């Protein structure tokens, strides 16, 4: 099914290097009591192998929905109306549910949650929960293991269990947990927030994934702990060549860790650029206003006037037009196509800001 706003989707710039993930004009709607909410409306996103991609936007702009769609864990009332998600050459929407659960989710694509407090079962030791993960998602698991009736009774093969246990201790060492050997026996409440987030990173990296989706992993942490976690995540991802989709509403953390940044507004991506270009010469009026609203010494605070639109009856055309000073007639009618500015910098705007503020 084609959705009307997607017809203008621009051709992707041919990029060197292999694309690991490609989201192609994805539309997701949520059925609500008030009507269908178009939470994602023609989103395009490309992540290359080994790249840290920042997904930036205000709350409610669809960052988490996009992450959930990639993982295939949308809520029951949500439906992908149009679009495709390509992961390493495979169409994730066409993949059978069982293969998705067995080989992709938690194995080749893993997830780091925002809240490290609610993500462990409080009643089981960290070691037990890690072993449970590795039983099913270990990179050493043979493809046919745990299949059919035999799989129902199959135990965790001893050789693999040993190898996995060793990998777990090594991983706990790489995420710099104090005393990795003793960590496994402790319950989640015995760890601080920063340590729990380190454990979450360990759990996400243990299956040796190709892509890690980190959903605001440092929002719940203090600044000094945030700095430690960002440093750790960047270093581990870079040294292992893992791609990261890093969603955040904090432009500062995005600057710290990302290679490229994509900005979303109300369910549409508006600009995508390498990190230097993004902060150096932002083109979309929304990006510019977002950067201006950061508190900086010696400058008056500037808010973005107006409010985020309701997604049940979103504005037509470019969804930012009601709050945009540069909006003209065409902005109200049609969503701007993606314009490439070279160097992987793309913007969707009829009236881009030429000069940096």
């Amino acid at each position, binding site marked *: 099914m084609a959705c009307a706003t997607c017809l203008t989707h621009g051709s992707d710039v041919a990029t060197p290097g292999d694309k690991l993930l490609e989201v192609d004009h994805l539309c997701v709607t949520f059925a609500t009591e008030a009507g269908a909410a178009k939470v994602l409306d023609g989103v395009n996103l490309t992540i290359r192998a080994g790249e840290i991609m920042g997904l930036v936007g205000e709350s409610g702009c669809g960052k988490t929905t996009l992450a959930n769609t990639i993982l295939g864990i949308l809520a029951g009332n949500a439906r992908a109306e149009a679009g495709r998600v390509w992961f390493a050459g495979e169409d994730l929407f066409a993949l059978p549910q069982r293969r998705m659960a067995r080989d992709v989710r938690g194995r080749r694509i893993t997830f780091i949650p925002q809240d490290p407090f609610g993500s462990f079962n409080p009643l089981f030791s960290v070691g037990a929960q890690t072993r449970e993960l590795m039983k099913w998602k270990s990179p050493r698991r043979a493809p046919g293991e745990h299949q059919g009736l035999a799989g129902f009774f199959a135990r965790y093969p001893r050789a693999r269990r040993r190898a996995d246990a060793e990998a777990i201790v090594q991983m706990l060492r790489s995420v710099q947990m104090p005393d990795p050997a003793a960590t496994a026996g402790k319950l989640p409440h015995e760890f601080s927030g920063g340590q729990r987030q380190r454990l979450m990173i360990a759990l996400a990296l243990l299956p040796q994934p190709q892509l890690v989706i980190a959903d605001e992993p440092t929002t719940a942490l*203090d600044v*000094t702990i945030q700095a430690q976690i960002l440093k750790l995540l960047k270093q581990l991802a870079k040294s292992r060549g893992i791609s990261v989709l890093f969603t955040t509403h904090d432009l500062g953390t995005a600057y710290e860790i990302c290679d490229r940044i994509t900005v979303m507004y109300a369910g549409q991506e508006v600009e995508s650029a390498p990190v230097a270009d993004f902060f150096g010469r932002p083109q979309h009026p929304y990006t510019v*206003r*977002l950067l201006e*609203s*950061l*508190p900086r010494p010696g400058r008056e*605070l500037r*808010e973005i006037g107006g*409010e985020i639109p309701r997604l049940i009856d979103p504005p037509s055309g470019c969804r930012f037009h009601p709050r945009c000073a540069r909006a003209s007639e065409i902005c109200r009618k049609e969503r701007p196509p993606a314009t490439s500015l070279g160097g992987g910098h793309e913007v969707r705007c009829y009236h881009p800001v030429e000069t940096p503020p």
Partner: protein
Amino acid sequence: MSQPPLLEVEGLSRHFPVRNMFGWQIGALRALDGVSFKVRPGETLGIVGESGCGKSTLGKALAGIHAASGGRILFEGTDITGCSAVQRRSVAPKLQYCYQDPGNSLDPRWTVRRSLAEPLIVHSALTARERDARIAKILEQVGLPLTHLELYPHELSGGQQRRVGLARILTLYPRLVVLDEPTSGLDVSVQASVLKLLRELQAAFTLSYLFISHDLSVVRAMCDRVAVMYAGRIVEEAPTERIFASAKHPYTLSLLAAIPNIGGERITDTFALEGEPPDPVRPPSGCRFRTRCPRAAAVCAGTDPPLRRIAPGQAAACLFA
């Protein structure tokens, strides 16, 4: 400087008892341990620190939500430390406490008008007509139309609820407002509008703010002076510009080094501080920061450095500052 301070806190402590399974007290969590500072009229004092450092306990102790375990709180020269609920009533209109999201503290079954009138009914002798006039004036100040008076909180957006919540705090014309993390968890654009509103209100009502936050960039934009807290103590206090230009305490320096600096060096390459804040039930001996401090020496374990003046208006609790 000649003006007497609006709020003066001397050696304020708040200890929470730690009990074992039989209910015997086996220790104390020293959330606040000898905190002293002053707030002058019209000034914004920032309280900065990581979670668990005692900054929210401090705000709540000032607002009378927590009773102090020791020390004194002087508000406009009167000691309000251990005062009863009845005595408190004379202070409450002038010293207000504002939760993280003031919009959340509105009663969902009351109209905006009723929510705004309640503090006036409790604390003032105004007639109904005078109350209406006051409410209308405040509502205009926070940038909402008068038509909103008859609406219920759920009919307002989150930002408007926040404005009504602030209006409710301001109806009594307070002199000092304790703002507890007013912008944490907000998007930058919303944060900018909240900060702007707070500034406008400060100018319109000549308010003093005690601005509790963990975000140094917000504090820099809002505050005149900053006090940095670590594990229940103030470790450094200075005018905002001095904190950012020439901080002396190693903890303050680490906090500054942890702020992402867009366009500058990446903290993921430079940040060096390791470890996490100590357990407040068992703080380390001597200086509480020594377990993480890059400059810690043997002497730090034995002496607890007092907050001492190191420059005009600047004080730090470090032996090497």
